């Protein structure tokens, strides 16, 4: 069964969520997201069914707008972000 984990928040300025398809994650052995994200937003943990999945670390969940800003320039934003390029399973999506 597919499980989508949305980590982030909504505040007065907008919605900032990173969505992780943990079914794809659980099959991944490379964990490219760990080093691929310059802001070191991700960590690997065991989920409730003892499968290794990526998650957004607790200290970053409420600061995604600021942390991810470095990879999201106002002009010339790349089609795929560094974390998405590093994730070979194509499991990462950003809401903004």
């Amino acid at each position, binding site marked *: *069964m597919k499980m989508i*984990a*949305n980590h982030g*928040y*909504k*505040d007065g300025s907008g919605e900032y969520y990173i969505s992780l398809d943990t079914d794809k994650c659980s099959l991944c052995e490379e964990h490219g997201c760990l080093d691929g994200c310059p802001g070191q937003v991700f960590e690997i943990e065991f*989920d*409730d069914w003892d499968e290794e999945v990526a998650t957004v670390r607790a200290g970053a*969940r409420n600061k995604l707008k600021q942390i991810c800003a470095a990879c999201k320039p106002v002009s010339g934003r790349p089609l795929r972000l560094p974390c998405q390029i590093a994730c070979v399973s194509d499991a990462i999506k950003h809401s903004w």
Partner: protein
Amino acid sequence: MNENETKEYWRWKEYNWKNPDIPDWRGSLVTAGVDVGSTSSQAVIMVDGELYAFSNMRTGSDSPSSAIDAINWAMEGTGLTLDDIRFTVGTGYGRVNVPFANKAVTEIACHARGANFMYGPTVRTLLDMGGQDCKAIHCDERGKVTSFLMNDKCAAGTGRGMEVFANLLAVPIEEVGAMSLSVEEEPAPVSSTCVVFAKTEATGLLRAGWSKEKVLAAYCSAMASRVVSLLERNGMEKDFAITGGIAKNPGVVQRIERILGVEALKPIYDTQIAGALGGALFAKALFAKAGKDKPALQGKMAGR
């Protein structure tokens, strides 16, 4: 200092309960779930998968002590000791600090499983309105999470925000919902993005002559619109149920139902115990699994 200044209007009822239909647990499989949340702690004890006893109390400053107090209060008058409980799951913010737990499971998974037990297998969308966060959860017919979305950025839209307003307006928290529904005309909601701004706004409205009922209606309305945006972002699918302390507030629940155009399932258990109940159900399943794989569980291990 007058009585109104010292009275704690936010204080909700703490209590324990024992199922009168289960006279004795001896000879049965006893499992437990302990939910140490940011604001409240619950312990649920199940006997052969049936709800046997629970406690619901305020979380103290020390998570391990809160977990021990909660389970001791649930066991009160049952003759149970910790050694009689075959498997315990810790959940909630303090799940890794439940000293007697065999395993820690996230509150998201536990709430979904608990709601499946409380409301039945038709629940697909669950809103858990906790003390300091709010979660929109999708689950399947077995109570397994298929997607979730959490917002813990601000106390707005959480139980703590409601406690702040109960104290500000000197209204007992159990009466907030009914009072907010007594207004003839629905006022515009106050700020839904920050509880500090909302409190400032409410103080201004009181000075402008608004009644307590009208201010409470404006806050309940703000809370409802905030959580509805969370639900809509994650997608809304029937049946819909609400867990957590705010589920007991008809002022928020009815406004959520009105905005969504969907009626929430009516609870038959205390909505605050959903997480601990799910933990106890996980404990039963995990004990059965461990029993197949291993001869016996050896002692207690710390939650991860």
